């Protein structure tokens, strides 16, 4: 069921001839109830795939926006267990939107890979990205996920040469995730022209749809990347909307979903516009 959900979604998008909009949010940010409300609202606002962060105290590859999102969630008592519970609740209203969990190794090690994979699959998660598990350390986790038909998505980056891309894709399924900048999330900006040849390299090595993330903040940039990749991931810009809404006392869910809507529209119309230009 699970890998199938990712494959079905990308097959449908391919038929439509457009890129996926992948929305990253932090589970339980700013609290469980609001986080769940945001999650449930994402597909309606235009998210084709959801990346759901599970918070970790020491997120070494995140820039300040996602670091702060993790701390907000942890302060409100968010855990990996509650993150999976949130997915179960989401699955009661949506059975088709793929959910990719994204986070760091230690909470998973703490739970045990087999137990985690079983619980995550049962909750309705489809895939997993672990920032600090490179291919060299991935086998035990990949085996556990395989047993539950869940995808492991190992990241490709600007420093991954063709030899490494092969190693990365050996244990990657679902889609390939290309990190567009060498750096942490939400700081440097991605350049579609620079990204384009790398997307082709990753696509050639993996035979999978390629989504691009890190450094995409605006509808314009999302559209530009959507013209060269199979999917566009936006994270920091969304969690910043949570922080902004809290700061000015606005409704968090409405503000986040409005941003999702504008980014999703840009991604959906990107190739149409490029054809008419």
């Amino acid at each position, binding site marked *: 069921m699970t890998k199938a959900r990712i494959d079905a979604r990308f097959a449908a998008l391919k038929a439509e001839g457009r890129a996926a909009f992948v929305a990253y949010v932090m589970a339980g940010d700013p609290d469980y109830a609001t986080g769940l409300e945001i999650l449930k609202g994402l597909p309606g606002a235009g998210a084709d795939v959801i990346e759901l962060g599970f918070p970790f105290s020491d997120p070494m*590859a995140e820039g300040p926006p996602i670091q702060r999102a993790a701390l907000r969630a942890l302060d409100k008592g968010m855990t990996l267990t509650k993150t999976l519970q949130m997915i179960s609740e989401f699955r009661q209203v949506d059975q088709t939107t793929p959910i990719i969990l994204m986070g760091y190794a230690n909470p998973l090690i703490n739970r045990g890979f087999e137990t985690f994979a079983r619980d995550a699959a049962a909750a309705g998660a489809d895939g997993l990205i672990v920032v600090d598990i490179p291919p060299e*350390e991935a086998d035990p986790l990949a085996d556990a996920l395989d047993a539950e038909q869940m995808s492991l998505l190992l990241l490709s980056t600007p420093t991954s040469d063709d030899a490494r891309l092969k190693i990365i894709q050996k244990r990657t399924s679902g889609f390939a995730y290309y990190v567009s900048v*060498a750096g942490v999330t939400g700081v440097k900006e991605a350049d579609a022209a620079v990204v384009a040849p790398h997307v082709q390299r990753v696509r050639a090595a993996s035979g999978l749809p390629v989504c691009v993330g890190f450094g995409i903040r605006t509808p314009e940039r999302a559209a530009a990347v959507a013209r060269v990749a199979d999917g566009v991931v936006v994270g920091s810009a969304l969690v910043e909307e949570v922080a902004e809404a809290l700061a000015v006392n606005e409704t968090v869910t409405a503000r986040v979903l409005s941003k999702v809507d504008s980014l999703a529209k840009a991604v959906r119309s990107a190739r149409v516009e490029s054809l008419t230009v």
Partner: protein
Amino acid sequence: MNAPTPAPNDYSAYPDAQGRFGDYGGRYVPETLMPLVHELDAAYRAAKADPAFQAELSGFLTHYVGRPSPLYFAERLTRHYGGAKIYLKREELNHTGSHKINNCMGQILLARRMGKTRIIAETGAGQHGVASATVCARFGLPCVVYMGAVDVERQKPNVFRMNLLGARVEAVTSGSATLKDAMNEALRDWVTNVHDTYYMIGTAAGMHPYPEMVRDFQSVIGKEVREQTLAAEGRLPDAVVACVGGGSNAIGIFHPFLNDEGVRLYGVEAAGEGMDTDRHAAAINGGRPGVLHGNMTYLLQDPEGQITEAHSISRPRLSRHRARAFLAARCRPGDLSDRHRR
């Protein structure tokens, strides 16, 4: 988590090619850093086997660091306790005032060999920061030291020294604003500046090959202790005691004795307000295995796998009750309690 089985009691084989010390160690880093980690590993392998590198390091340890450091017979302390003859290895007499410079000297020579032009480091109390700033000043390389904002306040004299040596000290306010957050921030810098920057890790932590490098560069302490004890007493010591925070001085003094069955090794962790509280810094006695900063090791963590802060007091008390040699894998694999339990 089954440990591989090298010859019993032979610890010289670690780490293996994957950077594992039994279950521990490894390379848990973002993909962006992985090619760099392989490059570092290859460069270190080459340097380690190169007599010219070892001779250069040895020369700097003698003429710049001031080695060997004395092994001092503590006559009054010995009389006070009335038991074993107590010798103190005087690492505080090195240039910069701690053992940290042994490792920094080795790593800066490696960084130069690799053609790196910018050095970053993390520091807690500031000793590794001062040692890093010093070797960078010696070789004319720019140095950025990440230090938790809380530690910057607690350790102002060391911040002053680092600045005086030309290093930039970045006060880290993220997370709990202490050592672990300084290391996170240094890793974020490294992942952003992969091409020109060398990350000088100061303790027996981080991804392979750092624990091995730190062990090798700090092992000069134990090698000297071995020779100095033989010269003074005509025999090896009955026991070696070292404090364990991150573990660099402990593994440095222990490593040359690891295969000596007759030498008991005691690692002492800071028990803070007591091991029955959560206000201590004893990751091995009071923590569980997990992954942080690139390696599998013992960590202070909550039941959900979130990292908790090591409790630090200005005058750390040693835990006399828990002074067992339990060194986890930074030093050697498995549980040493059986061999060393008294």
